């Protein structure tokens, strides 16, 4: 287990400001381009379309002209799982340890050459963040020239998902090692989507490091599995205790409510109670 100089593990996470996100799709394409994600002639069947980063369009359900919409970028949540011990919904079910929780970074890995394609992890993930290679990845003649050697293209029959651009973390660590530094700087390791977002809606960093912007934005409650103390911040499906490391921020109440399922009347009770209820 690799630790930083404070002897503390990293816990990389992401904060998405939904009020800044315009749904432009830069993050999606930056991700596809960074991670050698293949594409097919028809990508309009969204349930068979590999998009590690997917931007959902959600509405408040009201009729014209009271309608509102919000875009919600959804990478892999890199769940810490129940109790934040690393038993993510997917990691705990993978029969061959092809997906694993790295305690030193908090990143949920995916080993394509280990995965044999049982797809149990996909069933277990409530966020649909996992994608199966139903097809052989094929690039039009000549286009394989742009493939990056940092991320291996996946073969047919395996599951893939967002890795928080883990190769960038490795690269940053290698650089730090060569330069004889104990640890990497906040800006040294940023995901491709964070970097590309023209609205600056995505922030990435170490949720264990109070100096990092992500920490300051959401104030993760260490005694409550990282639940945000900032009342404007939330995590998707918080109540399932998956403990995601992707946080969302919005000033809009209906957006925060859309982040989870609530029984009738429940929202009114919990909406101002962030980070205080030790369930």
């Amino acid at each position, binding site marked *: 287990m690799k630790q930083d100089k404070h002897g503390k593990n990293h816990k990389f996470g992401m904060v998405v400001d939904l009020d800044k996100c315009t749904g432009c799709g830069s993050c999606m394409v930056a991700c596809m381009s960074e991670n050698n994600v293949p594409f097919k002639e028809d990508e309009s069947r969204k349930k068979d379309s590999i998009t590690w980063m997917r931007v959902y369009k959600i509405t408040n359900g009201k009729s014209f002209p009271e309608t509102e919409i919000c875009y919600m970028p959804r990478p892999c949540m890199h769940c810490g799982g129940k109790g934040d011990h690393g038993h993510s919904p997917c990691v705990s079910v993978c*029969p061959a340890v092809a997906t694993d929780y790295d305690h030193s970074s908090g990143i949920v890995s995916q080993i394509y050459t*280990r995965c*044999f*394609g*049982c797809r*149990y992890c*996909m069933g277990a993930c*409530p966020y649909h963040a996992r994608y199966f290679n139903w*097809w052989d990845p094929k690039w039009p003649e000549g286009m394989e020239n742009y493939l990056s050697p940092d991320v291996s293209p996946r073969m047919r029959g395996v599951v893939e998902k967002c890795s928080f651009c883990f190769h960038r973390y490795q690269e940053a660590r290698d650089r730090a090692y060569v330069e004889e530094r104990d640890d990497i700087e906040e800006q040294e390791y940023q995901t491709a989507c964070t970097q590309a977002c023209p609205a600056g809606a995505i922030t990435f960093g170490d949720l264990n490091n109070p100096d990092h912007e992500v920490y300051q934005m959401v104030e993760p409650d260490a005694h409550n599995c990282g639940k945000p103390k900032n009342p404007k911040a939330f995590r998707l499906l918080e109540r*399932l205790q998956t403990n995601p490391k992707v946080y969302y921020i919005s000033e809009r109440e209906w957006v925060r409510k859309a982040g989870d399922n609530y029984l009738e009347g429940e929202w009114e009770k919990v909406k101002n109670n962030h980070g205080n209820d030790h369930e």
Partner: protein
Amino acid sequence: MDSALIPKGAKRCPFPVFALGIAVVGVVLLWGVYAMGLCWFKGLNQTNMDDYYGFALWIWADLAVIAIGGGAFFTGLLRYVFGIDELKNIINLAVVIGFICYSSALLILAIDVGQPLRSWFIFWHANVHSMLTEVAFCLSLYFSVLTIEFVPLILENRKLDKVPFFHNLGHNMHGVMAVFAATGAFLSCFHQGSLGGVAGVMYGRPFAFREGLLVWPWTFFLFTWSAAAYGPCFTLCVLKMFEKITKKKLVKDNVVHLLAKISGWMITTYIIAKIIDTVYWATVTAPSQGQTFMDFYSNNPFYGVWILVLEIVVCGIVPAVILTTQKFRENRKLLLVAIILGTFGVCLNRWVMVLQVMAAPVMTFDTWAMYIPSWQEVATTILPVAYGVILIALAYRYLPVFPQELELNADQQD
């Protein structure tokens, strides 16, 4: 022309008729094999599965055949461990069905995974926390046990039995069968359970998730119990089909009624447990995750409350009442209704625990996902059925599957 192979004294249809029947089923089998080849060589894009339906028709078929094949381990348990001797008259049938079901299940799994050539990674890189790992280990071990249970029956073939080695081998295997039956029952309890656990541990999926005991969610126990309860129904269904097709009585009524009664009481206890589980899930587990019972049964074109009523009342309480009441189960028609409903019920339960789990949305802005299997999926699902029909027909024709056959059909013997 194959009379030398047919059990001594048994009457079988003329070989050409048999061969024709096998050929017809063989065509269906080949269709399935073709679809299987497509899935292996072209990949799973041949199916209509998608990223929402990673588990679909095949996994349902897999769970269903294992559940209905549960008659093998349960009857074996009753016969060899609890010593209910009458069941020796139906145990061979149960074993053959079990063998067919489990070999089918393994075949389906080999088609279902994206990288079949790497499927042994499940053993090599095993994750002990995964229910699927438990399934894989128990399933393959239990399949070996079933094979060992099946071999002595094969060796009883008239021709094979003449070989002294086989004769002695068969005899000795019979001697140790209790050990294997016990092992099999133990293994089977676990993998039936872990198949239930597959759904129950998915705490990201409120429709499937159940609390439980230690590492096992309640579905673990419900699956084992339901397989034991409903498995014999399927064994009896097959028996009834045999009797219908061969126009012979093959097992004495007392044996059938005994097994039916045991099944009835098992279903009764199971369905009580299932109702308690459902009520707890609907009123405590799911609401704690912000979902109401009706969230799981509305806003979609297919899954309504009817499916729960069908599973629990029509295919649970009804067969339980019929099979536990002597008057009813001894009525031929009612018995038939009960065992068919039972078989259907356990298959429906597996359907719900696979397909409806995949269909139900979890994120508030997600929608119900519907799916219709492709012909390749249907063909590969029918493939094991065709294979089973052929294997069981061969077994019946050439092996003394029913020890009471000769006695019950004394008037028809040549």
